[in-house]
């Protein structure tokens, strides 16, 4: 439990890196011990005795010792450089340009847009009924190599889930790729690892790794359009959502709301947390978020609206039942 994360690799990539890291740590520990031993030995043996004001031995160098001092670390580093190249090519093999990514992650200040281009190639995939787009909670299948494409909508972000291996920056104007081969189903946490502004701390990642069958079921269920509102309060909430400014920034598929600046809310009720892990998803938290967003997550782009308490309750109720 103690050394979780990096020392508990759960993907092919993380295992390779972890092995290299452990080998290096052993070598590093030996070198550190050697230095500590030498320092203790020298400072004990050659400490000045009281009243001894003489000079030390005038040794100005020793060719053999100097060659050994340079030669040994050079050989050691050459070996580790070879290991580095081997691990690097295993973890990040080149990407065949015709290979479609399995998942596209787009970084925003301060949330993750997650899309699964099942119909990659359609002109406007977001409007295609089969296209799944969600936010922050990243579902992935285990047991097969996945190609992730990483983009940014604004500043530089960085994808990092320590148990799943290497991190990669999301650079505006560039597309980056990452290979991922998850070993076991489970929940893995990570965080944005490139400083991206005021709420960099609350740009956390939640990966839900699933057996392929479970993942396929999840994907199908998320390809559906949003549930119609179930009761009168939810209906009122939907009307408010559509007629006030909410729909300008958020998308709810199956309704006219088609904004892309904020997270997709089509199935927000299914996600375990909102605001990248800051709050659990429930009606109460949704309501307080809509009521005073700048107190909960200062510096996020969600503006403070002048809604009445009743309106907030209706919208929160509507969103919560979008399962």
């Amino acid at each position, binding site marked *: 439990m103690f050394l979780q994360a990096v020392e508990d690799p759960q993907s092919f990539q993380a295992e*390779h890196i972890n092995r*290299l890291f452990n080998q290096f740590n052993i070598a590093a520990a030996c070198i550190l011990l050697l230095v500590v031993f030498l*320092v203790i030995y020298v400072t004990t043996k050659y400490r000045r005795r009281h009243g001894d004001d003489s000079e030390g031995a*005038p040794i100005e160098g020793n060719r053999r010792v100097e060659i050994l001092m340079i030669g040994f670390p050079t050989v050691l*580093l050459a070996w580790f*450089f070879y290991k*580095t190249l081997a691990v690097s090519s295993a973890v990040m093999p080149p990407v065949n340009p015709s290979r479609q990514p399995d998942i596209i992650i787009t970084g925003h200040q301060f949330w993750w847009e997650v899309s699964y281009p099942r119909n990659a190639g359609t002109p406007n995939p977001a409007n295609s009924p089969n296209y799944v787009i969600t936010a922050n909670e990243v579902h992935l299948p285990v047991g097969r190599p996945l190609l992730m494409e990483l983009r940014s909508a604004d500043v530089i972000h960085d994808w*990092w889930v*320590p148990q799943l291996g290497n991190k990669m920056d999301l650079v505006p104007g560039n597309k980056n790729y990452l290979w991922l081969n998850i070993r076991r189903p489970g929940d893995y946490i990570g965080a944005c690892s490139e400083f991206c502004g005021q709420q960099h*701390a609350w740009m956390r990642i939640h990966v839900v790794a699933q057996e392929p069958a479970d993942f396929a079921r999840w994907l199908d269920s998320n390809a559906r359009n949003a549930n119609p509102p179930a009761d009168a309060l939810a209906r009122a909430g939907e009307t408010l959502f559509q007629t006030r400014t909410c729909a300008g920034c958020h998308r709810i598929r199956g309704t006219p709301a088609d904004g892309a600046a904020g997270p997709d809310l089509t199935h927000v009720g299914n996600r375990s947390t909102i605001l990248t892990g800051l709050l659990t998803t429930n009606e109460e938290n949704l309501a307080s978020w809509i009521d005073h967003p700048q107190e909960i997550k200062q510096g996020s782009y969600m503006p403070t609206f002048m809604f009445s308490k009743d309106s907030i309750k209706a919208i929160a109720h509507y969103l919560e039942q979008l399962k």
Partner: protein
Amino acid sequence: MGTTIKIPEPSAPFPGLGVENAQGLLQWISAVDHKIIGVMYLLTSVVFLVLGGVLALLMRVQLAIPMNHFLHPEVFNQFFTMHGTTMIFFVAMPAIFGFAVYFIPLMIGANEMAFPRLNAFGFWLTFFGGLLLYFSFVAGGAPDAGWFNYAPLNERNYSYNHGIDYFAIGLLVSGIGSVATSINIIVTVLHYRVPGMALNKLPLFVWMIFVNSFLLLAAFPALNAALAELLLDRELNAHFFNTAGGGSALLWQHLFWIFGHPEVYIVILPAFAIYSEVFQVFSRKPIFGYAFVAASSVAIALLSFGVWAHHMFAVGLGDTVNSFFGASSMLIAIPTGVKIFNWIATMWGGKIHFSVAMLFAISFLIEFTIGGLTGVAFAMFPIDWQLTDTYYVVAHMHYVFIGGVISGMLAGLFYWFPKITGKYLDEKAGKWFFWLFVIGFNGTFLIQHVLGMIGMPRRVYTYPNLPWYGVLNFTSTFFAFVMGISILLLVFIMRRAMRHGTPAGPDPWNAYTLEWATRTSPPPLKNFEDLPAVTSRRAWWDMKQQAVNPHPQTKNDDPI
């Protein structure tokens, strides 16, 4: 009315702070004497050290417990930006220049720097650069995009207060001062050495600062260009780095790190320079492998311009680029790491005096080895892909900067304080300071390696209550305060020494190099009346052995 105040020549090494009759304070301000400018550099460094330290402690309070609300996130981001910028540009750099401009003329037997007015100009640019940067706090908000200030977060559309403009202008101003001082140092070393002091007889301190000045001269233009471009972006809507306007976010990173990685060596080489003197004097032995220590500094200087992209292994530059910079970063570890063994070998067979300066030098050997080894881990870029931008990096670079640079400056302080002021820093209180500092430092940062490995990114103002996060962060904060208290103790020790410290005499450590050959401590305004030609690397030691002593009262004679 109409009278002009005659600018006074300094009449004493410490002119005091009086404002009447154009004395005291005005003597400091108008000084071109390299020793007074050196002292002003060092005082600037101490003041900014306290400021940067307070910022660090406030951040540690915010991070002491999970989900803390002590600091607003925006304020936290301003603080870590200012902490990094302050410590690099206004603590490390002035400390380096302070020791350099004070001791280089003395160590090469010169009476002044080559360009005394340029020397003063360089100092005042550094000083006012720092003031400009801190003025941002009252001008609407400090810079908040990190000392590395990545694009496009540093652009107006993401950072709309004027903090980053002050950052750019403040660093440009102080950067020009740094370039001026480097030119001054190079010319001084090349032109004003005492007869007989060939380049292979230079004290290692002078050698390494000399090499370092070339490094600085080559590195700073990249930063200055990047800052100028950033100002054009922000003030005139250019788009060098603004991706929304077709600029490149990565261009900033390349320019910044072409400066930024050499900068790491720019601050560590002078510390190496100080250790090289301290190990010799307190082991009573010449350095082991003079030629190697000097030549490896040149190797580090050259290689340091080929390693910058190891800060960018996670931006997706591809295999070829990563492999090149991984190899070069491993290569630079060799000349750096081997020096550790040179210093150990210097102690071998010596008669080691455990002065406070020597204690800092010895603790450096172990702390810097830790920082160096974790540095090699980052050169192995798959490991970097896991650990970069986590607390593992925070731990790594504080082991390099505090264990390496700051410990070096403190060793230099305890070693040279008697020469600069004529008084000893109390060795007994100094040892208390040493142990508090070393325990505080290691307690704060050693466990941060673990925090990085369990997934805590750096530059976060708070964190969720995950297993071990709370207890490790709290421990780190506790020891940060131990370090903070040790710095207070240091300031107290310095004040007490200035007021009623034990007089040190001109050569308290029975040292080897020419700065101790001056008639008095502090040295007279004219450093040397005359010096005999130098015949070895330990010029002052030779003079004492051959009894061609320019001040015969030195031996067995308390000057007071």
